[in-house]
Each structure stands twice: as C-alpha cells, then as structure tokens.
C-alpha cells in the first residue's frame, strides 16, 4: 500500500517502484536521509516528455549562428504572453535581421522582475521553485514545472548515448546516484516515473552524513547505480573515500571539470566522464562527446550564442540562451554568467554542430574543515549571503587557515564577530578565520569582479 503523501509526491509511482524506493531508504548502509521529495510527474506529462525525447533523438536540428525559424516563431508568440519579451522587442522589429539588437536578460531580471517573465496566461498551479546555489553571493529563486524537470531526463539519456551508454531503466534497480561533497545539503531517495520507476538517490560524501565510510562503500557497491551524476568535488571525494563502484558513465555538472581530474576519474573508474553544462535557469545546454573538442550544444529547443557586454555576437563572450522548455521561465538572450568561444563544424553530410570551447564556468573549488571533511563554496555562500555585502573573496591557505574579504553594502553593517564564529563552526573550532572589511574590494580589478572562492590546498 503506497502512502498518500508519497502518491502526492510521485503520482505515478507503482507498487514495484515503491518497493524499490523503500529498499533504498531502509537499506542498512543508507546515508542519513535529510529530505523527502518526489518527481511530481503526472500522467498528462508523459506524452509531452515522450514527444520531447523523440524530437531530441530523431529530429535534432543542426547548430547555427542565427536563431532558427522555430525559435523566432516561439519568440514572436512569447511577445504576446510575457511583458519582458514585449519590452525587449519593439513592435515591428525585424528579428531575423536585427536579432543582435534585442536586449539581453540576466539573473537580476529573475530576481527582481519575475512577474514580467512568467507568461501572464500560464497556469501557475503546478509551479515549483529552486534556489540556485548562489556561490557568488546572489542566490535567486527560479520557478520551474515538474514536467520541465522530467524533460531533462531524455537530455541526460542523449548525453549518455553519445558515449555508448544505454542504461536499463526499471523498478528492479538503481539508475543513478547524484554525488556531492558539501558540509550541508539535502540527501534523499526517489524513483523516476519517466525512467520506468528506476531508483535514484542524492547522496553527500561528508563524514557527518554516514555512520561510517564503510557504510557508504557498501551502499554504493550493493545498490550499484548504473551511472553517476555529480560535481567534480563529489567525484574527487568518491576516489578519496575509495568507493568500490564501476559506473557505466559519470556526468559532471555544476562547475567546470578540469582536464586533469577528468583523466584521473576516467582511469580510476574506467568509464567515460561526461562534461555536462547545465544551469538551473536554462536546464542542460551542452555536453562533451567522445573525442570531440569542447561541448556540443544539443537540446533542440534552445538557441545558444556568445555575446559581448553590449549583447553583440563575439568571438569569445558570455553564453546566452534563448528558448528552453520551462513554461515559467521563457528565456530571451539570457546571460548565463559563464564564458566561452563558439565554433560551428560541418560534417560530410552538411550537418552543422555548434560547440562551446574553452568554457569558463564556475570553477571547481574545494575547502577542507579541520577534520579533513569537505566544504563547498555553496556551504560558505549560504552563510555569507545573510550579511549585507556586495562582493566577497574567500581564500583557504595551504596551512588550512582562511581569509575572507568583504565589501559591505554602502551604509550596511556586517557583524564580523558572529560571521567569524559561524564560519569557524563550519570549518571546526580551531580554524582561524580572518575577516577583513574592504569597501574597495573589486575596484582594483579591471573587470570589477573578484574571484569569490579560492583554495590553495593541494587537490
């Protein structure tokens, strides 16, 4: 008998799927679960997810430096439904000719003018929200639709397929673990209805999250997820914890994956490590392909370009996305905050592939507490965000000591003593944290930007 609260969270869960979920949750070696959540997918979502899967695998359009007629039609339709589109596109504007003049959208628009972005005739009854990690100090709340999240599954399947990996999805096994290494994060198990009730768990490789490292090793080895998703810090920790697992592939997201770590992971786990570029606001955008350079832009419903500060196409610039599949967040030249070069390659059949090269995304940075446990920029960002600051620069030195420079909001007052106390608690009581207020932080840099997190610890 499936309890009502689980049916609320997973409306399509079957008895077999529920049995698998319980076996993951009640496994004797399971981590300390800290969250309960489902996929919220309903039966009416399934045909749309399936149609999306077909479009992705069968009709994926080629890359182009200009938006496709489909994207332009979508933009025109959105102009009558969302104020931001109407404001950015004057009546009578020739989008084919003058696309480069359409003003860009940015995170700030989501933070301050979300009602101008959500189409006014869209039913918001199924809206859910995600807090973005906000490692730069500015977290935003992003509205989402459960169906959109379900549509992201075929995108992962596509990335895996490019590397010859075709997982078996069913209520008889675990499809995937998502692996992180943070001081604080949610940990939960789930089954996905769009993956035929296959099991999933989000786990955190932090000593406080498990009874013992041995439990974590057994949990991975017995449940044997077919592939892993996660960030480079989580994957690095998998090696350090000597987790005995042979996944068919590892999909690395969230921050930039360095080539040296990628090679080490591939050698250690003897599987492809796929670099997957995805943000909460845009969903998946690009992934690495075997032997190819950079990352291939692959979702069929986005137009990706790189632009300069004024929004004009640039050889190297900010990755900007139009389109997407989130009905609550239509994107019009949305600036991701990440930078790259773009290249277009034509194969013998005349098919053009758009690639992001030299992607300069959020850098993977890992800190260590006094006891050696991992601390992520997200853990620190979560605390710092509560104080009135414009920018910050957090550095952990090779000896484990930490410096934090803060640029307060003009007129704002930062209680550095309590902040130091909270950070000391995060790092372990013995960790000295040196906090310095610097009203000119960032002004000495040409770009005005500082590197918010830096670690001098050996990897």
């Amino acid at each position, binding site marked *: 008998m499936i309890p009502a609260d689980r049916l609320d*969270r997973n409306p399509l869960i079957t008895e077999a799927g529920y049995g698998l979920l319980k076996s993951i949750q009640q496994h004797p070696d399971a981590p300390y679960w800290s969250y*309960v*959540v*489902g*996929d*919220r*997918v309903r039966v009416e979502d399934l045909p749309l997810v399936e149609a999306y899967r077909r479009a992705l695998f069968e009709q994926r359009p080629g890359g182009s430096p200009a938006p496709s007629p489909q994207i332009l039609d979508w933009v025109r339709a959105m102009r009558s439904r969302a*104020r931001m589109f109407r404001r950015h596109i004057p009546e009578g504007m020739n989008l084919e000719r003058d696309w480069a003049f359409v003003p860009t959208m940015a995170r700030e628009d989501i933070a301050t003018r*979300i*009602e101008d972005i*959500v189409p*006014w005739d869209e039913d*918001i009854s199924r*809206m*859910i*929200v*995600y807090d*973005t990690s906000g490692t730069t100090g500015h977290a935003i*709340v992003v*509205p*989402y639709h*459960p169906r959109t*999240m379900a549509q*992201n*599954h075929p995108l*992962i399947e596509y990335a895996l397929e490019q590397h010859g990996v075709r997982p078996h999805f069913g209520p008889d096994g675990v499809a*995937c673990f*998502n692996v*992180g290494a943070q001081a604080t994060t949610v940990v*939960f198990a*789930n089954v*996905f209805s769009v993956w035929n009730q296959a099991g*999933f768990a*989000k786990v955190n490789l932090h000593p406080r999250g498990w009874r013992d490292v041995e439990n974590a090793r057994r949990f991975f080895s017995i449940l044997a997820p077919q592939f892993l*998703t*996660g*960030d480079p810090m989580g994957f690095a920790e998998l090696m350090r914890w000597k987790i005995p697992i042979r996944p068919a592939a590892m*999909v690395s*997201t*969230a921050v930039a994956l360095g080539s040296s770590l990628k090679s080490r992971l591939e050698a250690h786990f003897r599987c492809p490590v796929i670099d*997957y570029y*995805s*943000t*909460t606001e845009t*969903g998946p955008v690009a992934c690495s392909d075997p032997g190819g350079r950079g990352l291939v832009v692959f979702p069929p419903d986005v137009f990706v370009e790189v632009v300069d500060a004024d929004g004009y196409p640039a050889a190297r610039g900010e990755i900007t996305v139009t389109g997407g599949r989130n009905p609550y967040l239509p994107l019009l030249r949305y600036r991701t905050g990440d930078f790259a070069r773009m290249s277009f390659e034509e194969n013998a059949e005349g098919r053009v592939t758009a690639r992001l090269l030299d992607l300069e995304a959020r850098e993977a940075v890992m800190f260590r507490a006094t006891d050696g446990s991992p601390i992520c920029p997200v853990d620190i960002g979560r605390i710092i965000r509560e104080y009135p600051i414009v920018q910050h620069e957090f550095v952990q030195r090779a000896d484990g000591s930490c410096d934090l420079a803060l640029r307060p909001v003009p007129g704002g007052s930062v209680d550095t003593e309590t902040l130091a106390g909270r950070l000391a608690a995060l790092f372990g009581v013995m960790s000295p944290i040196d906090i310095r207020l610097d009203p000119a932080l960032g002004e000495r840099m040409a770009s005005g930007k500082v590197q918010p997190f830096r670690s001098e610890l050996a990897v």
Partner: protein
Amino acid sequence: MEGPALDKLTHRLSICPAEFLSEPRLTGGEGVHVDAVVSDLMQDLGGAPVSADESRHFQGSPKERNWLRLVLVGAWLLHDEWFQQARTLSADAYGWLRLGLGPLSQLVSADQFVSDPDRREELVRHCLAALGLRPAGETQSQADDRLKTLNSVEREAVIRETRDQLERARKLREKMREEAAREAAARASRE
C-alpha cells in the same frame, strides 16, 4: 476632413439645456422621448426621420438609463449649426448615437460630459471622429493623439490591466513562497 472648431462645440456642451439632461423615458415609464429627439435631429441634419423599428432602439430598460441620457447630450451636441449646415452627416450621426456611446456610458455619468471640461472635450472628439471629421486647425495625428489621451474607455482598460497585473504578480510571489512549491521536485543532476 476638417470639422468645426473644438472650443465652439465644448462650449455648446457646457450650456446644455436642462431638458437634454432630464430623465429619459424608460420602458413603460415617464420622461423625455429619446427616439423623438433623435428623429428630430436626423431631419435637422438633412436626413429622414427614424422609422418605427429604429425608434425602438431608443426606448431602453432601466439598465440603459445612462446610455439614453448620453444619447440626449449627444443629440444636443449634434444640433450645432455647423453639423446642420453640412446636410450630409445624418447617417454617421445616427450610427454614433445608436452604437458609439455604449462603452462610454458604462464608465462615465452623462452629466460629466457637460460639467467636466476633459469629458466635454472627449465627447466632442469622439463625435467628430465618428463623423470622419477632425477639429479645425488640427492635423489628423494631433486629433488622434489627443483623443487617445482623453479616451475613458482605453484608460479604464489600462487601469484594469494594471490592476490585473498587480494581482497576478501578488499571486505569483505567493505561489513561489508556498511550502509545497519550495519542496520542488527531485532532479537527477545538479545544475
């Protein structure tokens, strides 16, 4: 085509006689016979009197009281000698009285088109636009712009839209704070 001077017509409205502001006869009741007033006007403008069928349009229910009052004010305006001398405006004038005043009468009391200077100007401009005329001394685009600024119907639509937008924004922010929305849904990878 250039019409009469605006000032002359707004002044005419400001001196609208009491009988044109009297209560109209509603179905089965007492009051001014609006159909008869319209019929007289049609003849003064060089047209035919209204037929028995057409007359019935100007015998309204209590719900149409303000519209019938506005028809009377409009008829007073159209009795201006400029319109009478033109001798060609009866059909357009009939169309305006019959169909053009409904939306305005839903929003503004007929009295205000006599007592309020902006509403006087608005009614005159609506009238001239319906007759295919522009105020003397104005270009068409000046006349259009000025009517747009004064237009009560458009203003009401804008206010309603603004109010709807504020309400929608409030609901949206409420939804985004809801506990159920904040629980979100499981995602297979971290973005």
